[in-house]
């Protein structure tokens, strides 16, 4: 109980203290809002622009989670295929690495040209950023099953499918979750960065477009308001992936043992 309370209270207190210091600094020094807005002003701006910001927020969330789901599905399927066929891995893994190491801002303009729908191109961009950690972690997980258990399954004449179900999939799960924790944040980064590259084009737009617009008009408080929503989304993804990890691994995996 005390542990839990400390885990919530300490970071909350630290956060509030930082905000208070920020507020005090702005007020005491009389820093103008177009240089650094106070937290209270950011909050008020957020409230005043809630309607337009919420629509953009939902759009960014849609791109982020869409890309994350695609990354999860694509990464896991590809990792399973690589685990079953060494040849396939040798053939395709270099492509995955090339996609991973090429900065997304450099690829995004091309994708935006090739793909008609802005939403689809943003999804593709965020997917490219997010899928590699899932792929590479799951692949490592599939390869790190206990060799003795592997022998045991061989001895009992298990089929490939049984091996995957009884041994490889559960062994890979902790690695997959670790990959997902990274990919969750990356999907959000991908969604925002790709939208920056796209510019404020298209009918539906996300938080990046709000930040761009506000910067053109030097509405610094509004930039901060949109930024706050991006940051909160990232924190929410982090907390959700931790909760998922605890739910799936909490009973047996050392990484979740308190």
């Amino acid at each position, binding site marked *: 109980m005390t542990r839990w309370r400390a885990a919530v209270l300490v970071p909350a207190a630290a956060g509030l203290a930082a905000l208070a210091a920020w507020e005090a600094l702005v007020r005491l020094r009389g820093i103008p809002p177009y240089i650094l807005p106070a937290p209270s002003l950011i909050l008020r701006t957020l409230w005043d622009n809630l309607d337009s910001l919420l629509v953009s927020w939902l759009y960014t969330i849609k791109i982020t989670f869409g890309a994350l789901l695609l990354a999860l599905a694509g990464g896991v399927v590809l990792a399973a295929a690589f685990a079953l066929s060494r040849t396939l891995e040798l053939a395709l893994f270099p492509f995955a690495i090339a996609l991973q190491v090429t900065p997304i801002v450099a690829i995004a303009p091309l994708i935006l040209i090739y793909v008609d729908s802005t939403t689809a191109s943003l999804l593709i961009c965020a997917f490219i950023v997010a899928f590699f950690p899932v792929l590479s972690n799951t692949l490592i997980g599939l390869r790190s099953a206990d060799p003795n258990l592997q022998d045991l399954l061989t001895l009992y004449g*298990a089929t490939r499918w*049984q091996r995957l179900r009884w041994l490889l999939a559960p062994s890979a799960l902790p690695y997959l979750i670790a990959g997902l924790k990274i990919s969750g944040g990356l999907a959000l980064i991908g969604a925002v960065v790709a939208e920056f590259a796209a510019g404020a084009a298209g009918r539906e737009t996300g938080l990046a477009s709000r930040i761009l617009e506000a910067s053109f008009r030097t509405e610094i408080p509004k930039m901060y308001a949109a930024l706050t929503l991006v940051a909160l989304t990232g924190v929410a993804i982090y907390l959700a992936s931790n909760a998922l990890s605890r739910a799936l691994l909490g009973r*047996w995996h050392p990484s979740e043992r308190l």
Partner: protein
Amino acid sequence: MSAKIELAEVDKRFAGGVEAVQALSIAIEPGQFVSLLGPSGCGKSTVLRLVAGLERPTAGQVRVDGLAVGTREAAISYVFQDPTLMPWASAEDNVALPLRIKRIARAPAREQARQALAGVGLADRARALPAQLSGGMKMRVSIARALITRPDALLLDEPFAALDEITRHRLNDELLALWAEQGPTALFVTHSVFEAVYLSQRVLVMSGQPGRLVADLTVDLPYPRAAVLRLQPQFLQHCRRVTDALERDRLPAGAGRP
């Protein structure tokens, strides 16, 4: 009566040139309890892996029931030095694994698993995860899993080496009771002279690398054996013979005894 397990002039060389086993010939009668004793790295485990079909001999023949290993699925079970349990699965699900691979439905497989666990004194721990069990308990689960398929050959690779002496003695007695009840041919690898003599009808002594057979000793002590046997002169006499065989091999030819 023909041999249950037979190795004829078996050589095993691993990639990299390590010669694990050299010109090894062994024949084990059905239902016999045989120990394979030797210093670390003498190829004892390799012999078990050859019999289980997990390794192929470089030369010579390994036969189970008169047939070359791998030609048909033999009812062989294997107990590793580590308990080798799936950390995500309960004790009963671990024990049920061989049955599940043989496509027996979950409910009847679990029911059999609970009976097997009761047979090793773990009726009340069926739902426990491996992390919640002591080392001795985990090994009991491992033995229950090995016996659930009613194998007619049981291969044990130093299963009790990592346990404390009290637990080890207890498990020796339990293993003998289960062997007497189910009657499989047992091939038990150990580096403990006392354990080998206590358990077996025959002790095969192997030399250091590459593994060769240096002695084949009969232990004509009656079953059931009980703890008190460890203090009796005829037991110690057998231990002495086995130790002498080990020592003879260790000393260079022509060297006198110290």
